């Protein structure tokens, strides 16, 4: 419609089968709509969203010269886009479309009072028509997409996403906080349910990342700043000094051997304190990059400078070891970001009655993974802290999961990994293994079969969570006795155990909230990043161009993490290959002449989309970041912020039309 | 089947009771009146009969302080009716004989197959109330009962009483019948506080005015005093070991225990 053109509105009342027509009098609604101002044509039809329904609208646009379309049907979430496309295909600006929700708002909620529901639908249609008259044409903006991608986190999800993108020829920056990539998967010995060797399937991928020409790998680093928006993010990375120049170190590890400390004395982070390392170390033999790290807390050369530095003497590369190395803050340009920041395991100190940290017989499942790992502190032998081999082992499921006191959710992987641990312990020690569970959750491919197998192997399954752990001897150093209610037998069980394994759940990273702010996305109460739609946009976030992969979104197993990483990579690729992105028309804008530069709006914006332009100090809204929430519009004291699709005139006319109905119909309208 | 329970309010012995030197009466401020234990047992026995036979249980007491609470409690425990005997001002019969006459007069107006009362009371150690009442009404009387089993069909009751030395005797009597209860078959039940309050709010207690009955008591209370320590008592003091040692010596001296 051109400026000054009279609105010519078509109104379409959908039956939605019997969903609407079973309650509302659709014929009379269509007749009612036909009497409203500016309405040229008004019809009812069985399914407006069907092809014939859509064609009906197109035909009317052609024949009656409609320049506004109102469909009274379901929720705009369902079909707003459908009918906008119909308008566009018939040559009408798609934003000259107005949806009226008479299904949820009238038919469904008032199904027991049909007459009143029809009156209410009249009100809603009248308001929609009034608003339609004030609609304005909107043109969607486009932004170009920078082809490089940032992947944050080098666990299996980050590795998979990085390799997929790099293999497609895209430039990838992979940033990992730890000195090596590999994540939790690198700590495991076997993976369920196939019992693949974790190292055998993971390390080739890790090496591929390290060698890939399209991947820039920055370990021991973290992202500290993210500017810009989809298509053109500017990211600042902090590279912590490892006191070794990565480009010079050849990974011969002679420095470790020559360290002034002959014995490994520092608790190894990778082995969760069960093993020891030196102040200069690599986390594990297959680390990528194979570059040593000098731990500033324990290396006396870094800490005090007072060391004879045999490591420097033995190093064959001049200048590779550099105790003067400083933090660096390189900046990179990327168009899209994939977050694969992973999880941490639940800290069972929070449930002190399980005796973790109190009795040496109590372990977390992750500690046991290290004990089982061939390259772990015991070379894969299951040996207790007192040096003995366990004869009776208990594994308690759901530690820190399904628990209102800790985490309400099911961590999804614990049942399966607990069975894997049970199998491996039994295989290696012949111990009696008792799994204390509430429900066995084995819904994945090959999972139930694995459950069968472990049961057949003689692992005991007791349906009841351990409620009490007490030491057998008062000093607490020996066995522990666990009490459980065997709910299937209906009988209490008290079982002495050499080893009690707590199958700890998965939690969001401790700094998830800071990361969320950094990347301008949302996280749930539990700290997991929120996807845009749980079913239809599971790897997207509410911030365009930022995607999720792996356990940072929710607990999941390796196959799901890898699948999600692939999906995230595909989403990034889709954007890159399109080369540009259409922005949502629903964004706020500032009338510069009216803005006083008071900054009220700036801190209110949940998406950090508002800045002050330096020259005149007036607010500017970044279209690519704005999500159209309207907070700034409402807050602006001078009324200088407007919002497309939600202009004041549209809303006021809509409200006015509604109020007229209330005045006219009295109580009956409601 | 109509069971009537007569309850007597007596001073609570757990509290320190003092005698007023001037009047020679118990000091009212130190008195806390509660239903006597045997009467609580009489009520319990009645409630057991109610549970077994569906009888109506009417509880009666005089309107002494605490009488209303006793009736609410009885209702809370399951009594059907509760009557407060009054004559328009606090009512304190001065003797068991007078009380028996008052109750006899009251019972002329209410149905009764069984009249239960405590076998004794602190001011009626002879257990006269039941006997006098039975005499007034011309009914049979059995006392020191530990179980009452009425039979509606034969309109009679089997009453078990306790003799000394663990012996028991069983009587059968036609109804109506007055019984003095020693103990009920199970310990008196507890009335939850909420039920007592509900009974209070329900206003189910009824006041019944009974005209004073001319009665000339032949016995009068001359004096009240606390027991006086006799000369035979020796108070032992010291540590538990010393007291025990001294006790052994005394017992040996008096040849009460073998050397």
């Amino acid at each position: 419609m051109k400026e000054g053109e009279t609105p010519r509105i078509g109104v379409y009342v959908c039956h939605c089968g019997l969903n609407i027509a079973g309650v509302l009098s659709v014929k009379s609604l269509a007749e009612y709509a036909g009497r409203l101002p500016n309405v040229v044509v008004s019809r009812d039809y069985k399914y407006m969203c069907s092809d014939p329904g859509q064609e009906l609208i197109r035909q009317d646009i052609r024949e009656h010269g409609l320049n506004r379309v109102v469909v009274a049907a379901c929720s705009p979430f369902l079909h707003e886009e459908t009918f906008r496309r119909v308008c566009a295909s018939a040559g009408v600006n798609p934003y000259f479309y107005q949806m009226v929700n008479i299904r949820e708002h009238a038919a469904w909620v008032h199904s027991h009072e049909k007459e009143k529901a029809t009156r209410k639908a009249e009100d809603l249609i009248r308001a929609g028509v009034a608003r339609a008259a004030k609609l304005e044409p909107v043109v969607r903006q486009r932004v170009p997409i920078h082809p490089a991608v940032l992947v944050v986190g080098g666990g299996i999800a980050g590795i998979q996403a990085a390799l997929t993108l790099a293999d497609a020829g895209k430039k990838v920056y992979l940033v990992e906080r730890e000195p090596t990539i590999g994540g939790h998967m690198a700590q495991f010995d076997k993976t369920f349910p196939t019992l693949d060797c974790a190292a055998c399937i993971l390390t080739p991928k890790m090496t591929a990342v390290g060698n890939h020409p399209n991947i820039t790998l920055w370990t021991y680093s973290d992202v500290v700043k993210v500017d810009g928006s989809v298509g053109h993010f500017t990211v600042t990375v902090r590279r912590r000094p490892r006191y070794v120049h990565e480009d010079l170190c050849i990974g011969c590890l002679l420095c470790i051997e020559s360290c002034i400390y002959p014995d490994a004395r520092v608790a190894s982070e990778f082995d969760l304190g069960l093993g020891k390392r030196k102040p200069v170390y690599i986390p594990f033999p297959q680390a990528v990059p194979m570059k040593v790290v000098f731990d500033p807390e324990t290396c006396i050369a870094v800490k005090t400078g007072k060391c004879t530095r045999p490591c420097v003497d033995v190093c064959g590369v001049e200048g590779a070891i550099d105790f003067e190395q400083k933090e660096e803050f390189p900046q990179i340009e990327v168009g899209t970001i994939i977050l694969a920041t992973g999880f941490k395991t639940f800290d069972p100190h929070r449930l002190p009655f399980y005796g973790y940290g109190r009795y040496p017989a109590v372990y977390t499942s992750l500690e046991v993974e290290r004990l089982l790992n061939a390259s772990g502190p015991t070379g894969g032998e299951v040996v207790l802290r007192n040096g003995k081999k366990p004869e009776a082992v208990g594994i308690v499921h759901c530690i820190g999961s399904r628990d209102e006191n800790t985490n309400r959710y099911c961590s999804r992987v614990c049942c399966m990994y607990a069975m894997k641990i049970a199998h491996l312990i039994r295989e290696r020690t012949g111990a009696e293994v008792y799994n204390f569970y509430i429900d066995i959750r084995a819904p994945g491919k090959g999972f139930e079969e694995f459950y069968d197998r472990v049961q057949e192997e003689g692992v005991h399954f007791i349906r009841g969570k351990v409620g009490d752990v007490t030491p057998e001897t008062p000093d607490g150093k020996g066995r522990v006795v666990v009490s459980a209610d065997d709910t299937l037998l209906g009988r209490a069980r008290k079982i002495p155990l050499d080893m009690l394994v707590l199958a700890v759940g998965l939690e969001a990273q401790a700094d998830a909230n800071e990361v969320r702010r950094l990347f301008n996305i949302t996280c749930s109460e539990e700290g997991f990043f929120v996807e845009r739609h749980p079913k239809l946009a599971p790897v997207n976030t509410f911030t365009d161009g930022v995607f999720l992969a792996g356990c940072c979104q929710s607990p999941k197993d390796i196959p799901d993490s890898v699948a999600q990483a692939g999906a995230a990579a595909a989403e990034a690729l889709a954007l890159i290959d399109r080369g540009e992105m259409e922005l949502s028309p629903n964004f706020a804008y500032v009338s510069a002449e009216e803005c006083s530069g008071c900054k009220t709006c700036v801190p209110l914006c949940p998406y950090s989309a508002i800045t002050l332009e330096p020259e005149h100090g007036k607010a500017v809204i970044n279209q690519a970041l704005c999500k159209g929430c309207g907070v700034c519009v409402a807050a602006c004291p001078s009324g200088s912020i407007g919002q497309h699709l939600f202009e004041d005139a549209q809303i006021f006319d809509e409200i006015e039309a509604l109020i007229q109905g209330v005045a006219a119909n009295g109580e009956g309208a409601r | 089947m109509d069971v009537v329970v007569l309850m007597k309010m007596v001073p609570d012995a757990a509290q320190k009771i003092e005698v007023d030197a001037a009047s020679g009466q118990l000091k009212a401020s130190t008195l806390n009146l509660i239903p006597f234990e045997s009467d609580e047992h009489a009520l319990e026995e009645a409630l057991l009969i109610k549970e077994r036979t569906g009888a109506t249980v009417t509880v009666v007491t005089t309107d002494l302080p605490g009488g209303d609470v006793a009736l609410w409690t009885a209702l809370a425990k399951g009594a059907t009716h509760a009557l407060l005997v009054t004559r328009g001002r606090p009512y304190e019969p001065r003797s068991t004989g007078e009380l028996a006459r008052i109750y006899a007069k009251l019972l002329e107006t209410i149905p009764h197959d069984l009249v239960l009362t405590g076998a004794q009371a602190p001011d009626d150690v002879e257990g006269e109330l039941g006997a006098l009442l039975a005499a007034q009404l011309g009914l049979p009387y059995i006392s020191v009962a530990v179980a009452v089993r009425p039979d509606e069909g034969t309109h009679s009751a089997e009453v078990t009483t306790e003799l000394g030395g663990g012996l028991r005797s069983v009587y059968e009597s036609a109804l109506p019948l007055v019984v003095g209860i020693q103990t009920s078959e199970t310990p008196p039940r507890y009335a939850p506080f909420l039920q007592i309050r509900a009974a209070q709010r329900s206003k189910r207690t009824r006041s019944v005015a009974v005209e004073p009955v001319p009665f000339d008591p032949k016995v009068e209370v001359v004096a009240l005093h606390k027991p006086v320590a006799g000369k035979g008592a020796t108070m032992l003091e010291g540590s538990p070991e010393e007291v025990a040692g001294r006790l052994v010596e005394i017992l040996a001296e008096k040849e009460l225990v073998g050397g």
Partner: protein
Amino acid sequence: MDLDHVLLYPEGKSLLTCIQCGVCSATCPQEAFMEYPPRKIVAMLKAGLIDEVVQSGSMLKCVSCYSCQAKCPRQIRLTDLLFPLIRGRMFEGGGIPAELQKAFLDVQRYGNPLGRSTSERSDWVARSKVPIRILADRPGPVDLLWNVECYPSYHPRGQAVALATARLFHRLGLDFAILGSEERCIGDCAGYFGEFGLLDALIEQNLTTFRKYDFRRVVTSGAHAFNVFAHHYPGYGFTTPVEPVVGLIGEELPKLRPMLKTSVPHKVTYHDPCCLGRCMGASALRCYFAPPRKLLEAIPGLKYVEMAHHHENSLCCGGGGGGMWLDTYYRDQGMDRLSERVVKEAVAAGADVLAVTCDYEVSRFEDAVKVLGYDRKIVVRDVLELLDESAGGEAAV
């Protein structure tokens, strides 16, 4: 709220989320003696079969130790809501042992479960060598209102603890007073056995008394009163801060420490009362695990040892939820007494003194020591008695 309508309330609705994990039964110290242990009770309630539970008498064996509730992954309020409601139902059927009924009747009549005269409640004060102010005699503002409670007021062993407490307050220069014969049961046994009407009446009566006086905070002798103050009184608008005496003295430790001069050369273990630990829920902030241990370790010559069950895993003394008046019933049922289990653990830990800070416990554990014939092995002392002894005892005031 009653049992039939429990699901209409948010606190009751959580019952529907029970996943039958069995933690409650597994941790219940009386499970072996219950026909229906906690997990089955929830299942029975959900299945509409709760009357069978009421009739079974299983609930008489619950000692309100909070183990099940504190560990329940669904935060189902078993100890302070569901079980009291079920027991409340037992009053209708007459299945409550006479000993316990008498305790309730005594609380109704005399405001204490020992059946003692209200006028004798502060008789112990006469034996104190330090001044103890009774508010009725000397009203006026006071900093600390000391809620002495029933056992410390009437029981000879409790009175010894009360006297030691008074001496410590005096030494620390605390401005304190008691209610004397105006004090009544705070309502613990009533509230946890489901005699809610009595609890309600006691709270109303106590609040009426409190309103007569001007005090800034309340200190309770023991754990149970503290628990009732913390969980039930706020609902009646009582917001004055309340601390158990070990918490209060714990805060005064810097001032007390120089006075602790006499060596107490014993191996001491400490029994965590349920009502200062588990009952405070998941929030460890309000648990009093640390103060008594710090106090004991401040005593010269004393060696502290830990029992197998401690902190949130502590074994109940068996006195809560009416258990104090069910020992005869438990014996008739062939049950071992929890207090004896604790004493055995204390001896096994090598302790010759079992330190406590719960008003029921001195007498309970002393009974257990005698029954077990451990008189020569171990003695039971309140933490405050040990502190008082180290500070010179009665001779030093």
